């Protein structure tokens, strides 16, 4: 009976998280177009619904009813599996994120390592999508994107090692609680190098500007998902935005304090401690997503060799130095 109860609670949590994240993904696309539009001195979507608020619904309906075209010489089983791998790995990462105190679907002791596992597995969706489409653009885009992903995984992992050293645990809830105990409140202040490396690596891991050469329209048609149409394309899109939300959530949890605010702020303004933790978490995630859109609207794209050079020659040594300094400080100070 106890077992059935636990299963039911987990099922309810999964439904809630799934629903809320899908809703966020839909409106993340809407807000991206609005915000980038405003930054370019134009309105974004304004037609569908008041101020364009029903635009995501219109997009989903359009994608759902598009014809499903498959290239004649494509490798069918792999062609079908590739979007599934992308979406499944993106969604599985949501199961270890603690949204507020006590609400996490799977409170495992290796939460941070699980996120690295998921990042490693999501490379396959892209390589297989590129290869199974049996077309030059897709293949090149897929290989480039996969090489970019595995290069920046290392820098991201090392920047998270710094956080793990400061918190003493791989459990994400414990990391947030350790930040609350720390006098500065957020690990972004002592770990500024690690935070910088993590932010740049997060941009590269989600194939977002300025690292979006694999899906740049002017260079590679549409990169690895050129041959995908209709609902399969929607899957890739969904996977990309869920990955963006996951990276924002990880940055909020590991570097910005998660559902807590620094103690010096609560001491200065006592009314802040009555705000529920989920609000702080959402504020931090939304701020990070706004940063994603801001960077996309502002910076030009990196060339592929510059991109790889940054990952290996700049970010990885910086992350190493960060880990060394953190370990030194923790051990002897």
């Amino acid at each position: 009976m106890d077992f059935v109860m636990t299963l039911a609670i987990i099922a309810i949590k999964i439904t809630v998280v799934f629903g809320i994240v899908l809703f966020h993904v839909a409106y993340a696309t809407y807000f991206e177009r609005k915000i980038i539009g405003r930054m370019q001195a134009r309105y974004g979507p304004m037609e569908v619904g008041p101020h364009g608020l029903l635009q995501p619904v219109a997009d989903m309906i359009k994608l759902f009813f598009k014809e499903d075209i498959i290239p004649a010489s494509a490798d069918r089983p792999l062609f079908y599996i590739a979007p599934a791998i992308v979406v499944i790995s993106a969604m599985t990462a949501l199961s270890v994120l603690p949204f507020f105190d006590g609400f996490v679907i799977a409170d495992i002791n290796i939460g941070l390592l699980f996120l690295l596992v998921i990042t490693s597995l999501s490379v396959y969706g892209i390589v297989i999508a590129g290869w199974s489409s049996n077309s030059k653009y897709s293949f090149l885009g897929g290989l480039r994107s996969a090489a970019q992903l595995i290069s920046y995984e290392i820098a991201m992992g090392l920047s998270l090692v710094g956080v793990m050293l400061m918190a003493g645990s791989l459990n994400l809830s414990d990391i947030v609680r350790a930040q609350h105990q720390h006098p500065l409140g957020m690990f972004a202040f002592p770990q500024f190098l690690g935070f910088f490396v993590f932010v740049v690596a997060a941009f590269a891991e989600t194939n977002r500007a300025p690292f979006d050469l694999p899906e740049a329209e002017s260079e590679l048609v549409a990169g690895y998902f050129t041959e995908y149409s209709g609902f399969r394309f929607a899957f890739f899109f969904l996977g990309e935005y869920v990955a963006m939300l996951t990276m924002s959530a990880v940055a909020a949890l590991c570097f910005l304090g998660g559902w807590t605010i620094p103690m010096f702020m609560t001491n200065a303004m006592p009314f802040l401690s009555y705000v529920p933790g989920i609000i702080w978490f959402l504020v931090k995630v939304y701020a990070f997503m706004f940063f994603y859109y801001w960077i996309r609207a502002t910076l030009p794209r990196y060339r592929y060799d510059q991109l790889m050079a940054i990952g290996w020659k700049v970010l990885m040594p910086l992350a190493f130095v960060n880990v060394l300094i953190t370990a030194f400080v923790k051990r002897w100070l």
Partner: protein
Amino acid sequence: MLPKLFFGYFAAMITILSLLAITRKNLVHGIMWMLLLFVHIGGLYLFLNAEFIAAIQIIVYAGAILVLFLFVVLLLNVKEEFKGRRFISSWQGRGFVAAALLLGIMLVLQYAVIAPHGKYSIEYIQSETHTKVLGTVLFNEYVFPFMILALVLFVPMIAAVVLAVKGRKA
């Protein structure tokens, strides 16, 4: 009953997947079956209370080594041409040798005797996390092999670059 069912599922899937992986004509399909196999082996490690090793298995084997295989197969366009058939012509004899080896190992395993228990009981590992216990053992008793492992990983990195870069006469 339930643990035995879980183990039965993992064992059956691991056997079937490994057989599928080595008998595919299309190399990329074989690599994909192997990916699924490694994820199942990682699951089996979780079943044995070794969560850190399970994560390392998937990150290193499934996420790095297999990606390396996939890149080499895709970039070099390695295909199984029809001139050489999938299996060597004498595969029945070799299969018989492998089966005989398996029978021999299984007969010997019946006589396995477990040595006296060490001090890292499962409750101890679960109270302090597995990562911490593994780290304690690794960095207290096996520091020297760990340093040598760093060298073992460093030298092949240089060797791979030297061997694979075009334009060198090495």
